[in-house]
C-alpha cells in the first residue's frame, strides 16, 4: 500500500521534490534555464496541457519570488528598470499575440513558431558554447558580483549595448551599475522582447535576461535580478488567471518548489566555487539539446508519432542531469582542492 501525505502519494511527492532539486540547481547556478523543463515533463507524464502550463507557471512564479528576495538582499534588483520592462513587455506581448493570431488564420502559426523557437534556443546555445570555448569568455552568464555594486567597466559593455546607449534621446535614465540609457531605448528593447515572448507563447526569461545585458548593457547580476522581479509579476498574474479555472495543481507545485528552493541554494553556493567557463560550455550544450528536443517533439506532432514526445523529454531531462551533475562534481572537486591546499599551507 502506498503511503500518503496531505492526500498525495508519498513517492509522487518525492519524485517531484527530486525533480525540483535538479531544476533548482540549474536555476541557482545559471539564473535561468530550469523552468522550461517543467511543462513538457508534466505533459509527457500525462497531465492535461492546461494543468501542465498552469502548474509550471505557478512554479516559475514562486521560484522567482525566492530568487528575487535573494537578489534584493544583494542589491541586484533595479525596480525602476523592472517597472519599465513590465510596461514595454506587456505591450509587446499583446502585439505578438495579434501576430500569432494572424498566422493562425493563415494556418502556418505552428510551423513558424516552432522554427523561430528552435532557431532562437539553438542560436543562443551556439553563441554561449562558442564564446565559452573559443571566445574571450565575455558571452553567456557571468557571476561577477562586483559588477553589481560598482560602476560597470566600459570594456565589459557589449558593442550593441554601447551603440544603444549612444542614442541620447531624453529623458535619460540612470540605472544601477552606473549605466545611463534613454527611456525610449529601454521601452523599445522591452517591447521587442515582449513581442517575441507573446509570439512564441513563452515566459521570455531566456530572451529578456540576455537582452538586458547585451542590448542595454546592464551588468549580468542586475539583469538577472531585474528579470526575476518582472517574472514575479508576469508569473503571478498568469498563475492567478489559470487558477481561476482550477488548473493549478498544488500537489505538483508544492513538492517541486520545496526541492527547487533547496537546489537553488546549492546552485548559488556552487557559483563561488566553480570556474564559470568550465561549466558555461555545458549550459550552451544544454540549450542546444533543448532546441533539438523541441524539434524532435514538433516532428513527432507532424508525423503523428507520440513516442517522439518521450524521446524529446529524455533529451531535455538527460541534458539537465548532465549539466547539474557537472556543477555538483566540479564543486565537490574544488572544495576538496581548497581543503588540501589549506591543509598543506598549515603544515
Amino acid at each position, binding site marked *: 500500500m502506498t503511503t500518503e501525505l496531505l492526500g498525495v502519494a508519498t513517492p509522487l511527492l518525492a519524485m517531484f521534490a527530486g525533480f525540483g532539486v535538479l531544476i533548482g540547481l540549474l536555476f541557482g547556478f545559471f539564473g535561468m534555464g530550469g523552468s522550461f523543463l517543467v511543462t513538457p515533463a508534466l505533459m509527457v507524464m500525462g497531465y492535461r496541457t492546461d494543468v501542465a502550463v498552469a502548474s509550471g507557471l*505557478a512554479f516559475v512564479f514562486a521560484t522567482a519570488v525566492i530568487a528575487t528576495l535573494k537578489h534584493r538582499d544583494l542589491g541586484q534588483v533595479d525596480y525602476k528598470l523592472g517597472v519599465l520592462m513590465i510596461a514595454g513587455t506587456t505591450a509587446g506581448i499583446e502585439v505578438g499575440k495579434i501576430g500569432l493570431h494572424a498566422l493562425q488564420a493563415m494556418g502556418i502559426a505552428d510551423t513558424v513558431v516552432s522554427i523561430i523557437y528552435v532557431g532562437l534556443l539553438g542560436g543562443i546555445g551556439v553563441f554561449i558554447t562558442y564564446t565559452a570555448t573559443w571566445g574571450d569568455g565575455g558571452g553567456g552568464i557571468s557571476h561577477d558580483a562586483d559588477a553589481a555594486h560598482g560602476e560597470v567597466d566600459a570594456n565589459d559593455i557589449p558593442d550593441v549595448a554601447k551603440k544603444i546607449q549612444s542614442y541620447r534621446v531624453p529623458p535619460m535614465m540612470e540605472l544601477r551599475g552606473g549605466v545611463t540609457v534613454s527611456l525610449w531605448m529601454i521601452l523599445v528593447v522591452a517591447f521587442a522582447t515582449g513581442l517575441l515572448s507573446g509570439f512564441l507563447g513563452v515566459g521570455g526569461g531566456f530572451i529578456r535576461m540576455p537582452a538586458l545585458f547585451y542590448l542595454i548593457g546592464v551588468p549580468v547580476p542586475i539583469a538577472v535580478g531585474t528579470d526575476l522581479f518582472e517574472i514575479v509579476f508576469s508569473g503571478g498574474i498568469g498563475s492567478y488567471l489559470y487558477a*481561476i479555472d482550477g488548473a493549478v495543481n498544488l500537489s505538483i507545485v508544492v513538492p517541486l518548489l520545496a526541492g527547487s528552493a533547496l537546489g537553488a541554494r546549492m546552485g548559488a553556493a556552487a557559483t563561488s566555487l566553480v570556474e564559470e567557463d568550465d561549466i558555461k560550455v555545458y549550459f550552451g550544450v544544454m540549450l542546444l539539446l533543448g532546441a533539438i528536443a523541441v524539434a524532435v517533439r514538433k516532428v513527432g506532432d507532424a508525423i503523428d508519432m507520440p513516442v517522439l514526445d518521450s524521446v524529446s523529454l529524455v533529451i531535455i531531462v538527460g541534458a539537465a542531469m548532465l549539466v547539474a551533475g557537472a556543477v555538483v562534481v566540479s564543486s565537490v572537486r574544488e572544495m576538496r582542492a581548497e581543503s588540501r591546499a589549506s591543509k598543506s599551507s598549515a603544515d
Partner: protein
Amino acid sequence: MFGLENASGVGGAALVVGVVLVEAILLYVGYGAMERLLGPTLVRALGGE
C-alpha cells in the same frame, strides 16, 4: 492538497496563489536558517575534513 483540489473562481484562485506565495517565503526563510546552521558542517564534510 490542503483541501484545495477543487479551488477555482476568483476567491479560490487567490487562495491557491496565496498558498504558493506563503510557501515560497517560508522556504526562503527556512532554508536560509538551515544554510547558516548546517552549511559550514556540510562544506567541511564534502571537503573531506
